[in-house]
Each structure stands twice: as structure tokens, then as C-alpha cells.
């Protein structure tokens, strides 16, 4: 045995060299078309460069040429896992600029569907994260519950993923008793399924070994790189736009903001970011329930001019997307189209830290780190 496996490798004869390898754009763990060029030394990552732009459609250029109403469907395609939140953010910005009032019932419905969409988005994050790390079963469980949300959203908007439901001045359709019943049934099922998720994945020893103490982002690092959403809260910074600067009706509801506490390892590791998402799903259930119980009667569409000509000025409404702070910075020169629309996407900023934290980790951990960011490339590239 001694001859076959020498205890010390013959350093002078063993040829080692650094390799430059491509991860993506078609790698299954990159959640879309992200390309990472990784310089490896054996199993160790020395340096990584993210290359983005494969899904670039120049949304901002399109938004400059279309009337405000026609831009809303384009926002669906940015973060296609959380379309309601994207529509809502754009509508809120236009409404703020134009001083448009939204009926209370419409505002409640927006909150209900934005939160349902947040749960759906976190379910995808949960399912695919398990998939990245080799656990296939949680993915099927997550998509079972997500399917309930998608069919609820299909009933209200006619679409399964790209809803275009929140409109400027209100929402497209009113809720029916049948849909309300579906939502209540979903909440019951979700609360029943959530402990199952934890048994399957959150407390799974293999999963913990793969994610705890991996890709640690300290709070100061997270702030310096402009991280938002679960990535920032996973590092223990309590910043959520729904509480920090409540938009829509979020100041009316009672919910907590979960932050990472380093339960399984260090604060700010991949498990913490994952766990923040898991807890947020339950908080969203609380918000949906409260909004459904307090839903007032009334109109679902406010009075909006047919030709929407907004006053000259600039507004930005920060909203809490499932991935972090999403906001549309709209500059108007008094025309029917915006002079400039800038979408501040959370995934774009969250991705920028990749280069810093994958330095010196194992190649297998790169998958765990990217998965824990939960990026959507449609919104990174815009």
C-alpha cells in the first residue's frame, strides 16, 4: 500500500497548474444564464468572474418609448418569479408621480397577491436550492404548494406566471368568493407543509453540512456591497422596505422581519439566507390572512386619466421584492412617456458580491453560494 499511495505526494514530479473553467451559461445550478469564469487550483477556487447580459432586453430603453400603462407588462418579464411585486413597484412609482389615488380594496388585493407571489417565489428558491445540492424531493414538495398559488393567480388574472394584475390606479379584477376560499385553503395547506419542508431539508444533516459556515457574508460586507432582501437580513441586518418605509398598506399589518442568527453556523452563511426565506414564507401567510380578513368593500380601480400625462419630476418608490429592494426611478418631462426609467433590481446588486466571497472556497461550494443568493437573471440583465 505504501508504494501505491505515498503519504506525501511527490511535489517535485507532480505537475499542478491552475485551470480556467466555465460554469454556465447552461449550468443547471446557475438558475438561468449566468456564466462564471472560475480559476481553480485543484478543487479550490482562486478567482471567479461573473459574466452577465445574456438575457438583456434593454427594458429601460423600451420603457422610454412606451406610455406608462404599456410598460407594466414589461415589468412582469424582469423578475418572472415575482411578477406581482414588479408590477406593484412600477404602479406605485407612477401613482406617486401622478398623485393617483388607489381605492382601499385594490390596495388590499395588491398586498394579498404580492405576498402570495412572495411565497411562490421563496418556494422556488427553497426547491431549487435543494436541487442544486442534490436533494430532489423537496423540489417536488415545493412545487406542489406553488401550484396552488399559480392556479389562484391564474383565476384572478388569467395568467400563470406573468400576471399584469396590479394596474396603474388599482387592480385588473375583483376577487370572487371562490378565489378567497382557495386562498384560505392554501394557507391551511402551507402551514401544514412548512414543518415538512424543515424535516426534509432545513434540518437535514447533509444539507446543513453543505450550507452552514459556507459563503459567510458579514453585516459590514453586505452593506458595503449594497445587498438587500434575504441576503442582507441573513447577515443580521434588519432592513425590510415593508417596515422601514411602508408602501401600499404594509403599515397596517402585524408581521415580523426574520434575520439570520447563525443557528447552524456563523451568522451570514448560506443556511441563514435560506432560513430567512423559510421564515418569511410564514410571515407572508400572516399578512395574507390579515388582509383577507380585513378586506373592505368598494371599487377596485381608481380614477385615472385615459391619456396618462404625468407632471415633470422624478420619483423612486423602494419596494420589497422577494429578492430585496426593487424600485423604479422614473424621470418625467411632462410627456406621456417617461424620459427615463431605471429599474433598481436586487439580484443585480446581490450578484456583485459573488467575486468576493467565492474566493478560496471549494468548487462545490460555489453552487451552494450562488443558490443561496436566489438570483433571477431576467432581472439581473433587465
Amino acid at each position: 500500500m505504501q508504494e501505491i499511495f505515498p503519504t506525501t505526494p511527490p511535489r517535485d514530479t507532480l505537475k499542478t497548474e491552475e485551470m480556467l473553467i466555465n460554469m454556465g451559461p447552461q449550468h443547471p445550478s446557475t438558475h438561468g444564464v449566468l456564466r462564471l469564469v472560475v480559476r481553480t487550483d485543484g478543487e479550490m477556487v482562486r478567482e471567479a468572474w461573473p459574466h452577465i447580459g445574456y438575457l438583456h432586453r434593454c427594458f429601460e430603453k423600451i420603457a422610454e418609448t412606451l406610455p406608462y400603462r404599456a410598460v407594466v407588462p414589461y415589468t412582469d418579464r424582469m423578475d418572472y418569479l415575482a411578477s406581482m411585486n414588479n408590477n406593484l413597484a412600477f404602479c406605485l412609482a407612477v401613482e406617486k408621480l401622478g398623485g393617483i389615488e388607489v381605492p382601499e380594496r385594490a390596495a388590499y388585493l395588491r398586498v394579498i397577491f404580492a405576498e402570495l407571489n412572495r411565497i411562490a417565489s421563496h418556494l422556488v428558491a427553497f426547491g431549487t436550492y435543494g436541487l442544486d445540492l442534490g436533494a430532489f424531493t423537496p423540489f417536488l414538495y415545493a412545487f406542489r404548494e406553488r401550484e396552488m398559488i399559480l392556479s389562484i393567480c391564474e383565476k384572478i388574472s388569467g395568467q400563470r406566471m406573468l400576471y399584469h394584475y396590479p394596474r396603474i390606479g388599482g387592480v385588473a379584477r375583483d376577487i370572487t368568493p371562490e378565489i378567497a376560499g382557495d386562498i384560505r385553503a392554501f394557507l391551511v395547506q402551507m402551514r401544514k407543509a412548512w414543518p415538512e419542508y424543515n424535516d426534509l431539508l432545513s434540518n437535514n444533516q447533509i444539507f446543513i453540512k453543505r450550507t452552514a459556515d459556507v459563503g459567510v457574508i458579514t453585516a459590514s460586507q453586505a452593506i458595503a456591497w449594497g445587498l438587500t432582501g434575504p441576503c442582507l437580513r441573513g447577515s443580521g441586518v434588519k432592513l425590510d422596505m415593508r417596515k422601514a418605509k411602508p408602501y401600499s398598506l404594509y403599515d397596517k399589518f402585524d408581521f415580523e422581519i426574520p434575520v439570520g442568527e447563525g443557528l447552524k453556523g456563523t451568522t451570514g452563511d448560506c443556511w441563514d439566507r435560506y432560513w430567512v426565506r423559510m421564515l418569511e414564507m410564514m410571515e407572508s401567510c400572516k399578512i395574507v390572512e390579515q388582509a383577507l380578513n380585513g378586506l373592505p368593500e368598494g371599487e377596485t380601480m381608481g380614477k385615472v386619466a385615459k391619456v396618462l400625462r404625468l407632471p415633470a419630476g422624478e420619483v423612486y418608490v423602494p419596494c420589497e421584492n422577494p429578492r430585496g429592494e426593487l424600485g423604479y426611478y422614473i424621470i418625467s418631462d411632462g410627456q406621456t412617456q417617461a424620459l427615463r426609467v431605471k429599474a433598481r433590481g436586487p439580484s443585480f446588486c446581490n450578484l456583485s458580491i459573488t467575486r468576493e466571497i467565492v474566493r478560496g472556497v471549494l468548487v462545490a461550494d460555489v453552487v451552494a453560494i450562488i443558490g443561496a443568493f436566489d438570483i433571477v437573471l431576467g432581472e439581473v440583465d433587465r
Partner: protein
Amino acid sequence: MPLEPATLLETASAAVKAIGADALLDGIVFRGEVTLVIERDYIVRIIEALRRDPALSFSMLVDITAIDYLEVGREPRFDVVYALVSLEHRHRIRLRAPVPENDCHIQTIVPLWRGADFLEREVFDMFGIAFDGHPDLRRIIMPDNWEGHPLRKDFPLGGATSFYYKQDTDEYAGEPADLVPRIRVQDSDV
């Protein structure tokens, strides 16, 4: 507690004026949002001061972007826009620094916030505004060999002229005409 917009404007203006008498060009409060228009040469020192001031403490960079005023006909042509938020006080501010077309550059703020890296690269890519001292100023979204800057108003909406090769050979076949003219759709069309 967040400062009221008027108070925030006053405090921030005083902090900017302390840097240089000509540093502050304008201060705007619109729909409760505070915007300062500042001289671009002071940008790093102004942001540093806004971050250090305990009453303001703008500790986080939210966004960097730019605006092209070609159609409005404003001179200087571009504005580089910085959005800052205070984690402590939860208030926000926006800084706009005018940049002329013939001298298209501004100081980088990557030493202050590392997150400015991607954001400045995006502005460089889309508007062609250079950031002096940026560690890695390359295109980020468009391909490296792309010509032009897509978000400039004089960039055609249908895309830049493209070229194609003849089938099965590498022979250059010419450039197709710009098929999609630059249009602004009217509200009545939708």
C-alpha cells in the same frame, strides 16, 4: 427617526456647502423626495461627508444611474445619479451630478462602497460615462466588442447596425438597413 424632507434638504445642503462654496448647484424636494444637484468634481468628498455626518449617516449605496437629456436639450447632456439610504435613520437622498458630453467622466466611488463596482460599470456600458479610478471598468451587460451605448437617446431603438455573413462561407455580406425606426408610441395606440 427619518428627518423630514425639508430638514433633510437643509442639513444635507449645509454639509455639501461646507465642502466647497460652489459644490451645491440646486436642492429639490419633490413628492417628499430630496434631490441635490452637485458639482461633479466634489462627488467623492460630498458622499464621504454625507456618510460621516451623524445626523445624516447615509451608510448604504442603493443605486447609481445616469440620465440623458439630449431630447430635452439641456446642457450639460448627462446627469449621473446616486441614491443613498441611511440604515440608522431610514431616510433617503438622491444626488445628481451633471456631466457634459465632451468631457464625459466622473470620479469613482468604489473605494467608499464596493457595491459601486457593478453599478458604475453598467453606467459606463449604457451611457459611456467613464469613472476615473474604477478598478475594472469594462462593459458589463453588452458584449465587449459592442459599439455605442444603448441608453443614449441617439442610439437607435432598433439596435445598432448589424452585419451578417453569407451562408456556409465567411464572406461578408453587408449591413441590413435599420429595420425598426425610432418611434415613440402614443397612448392612443395601446
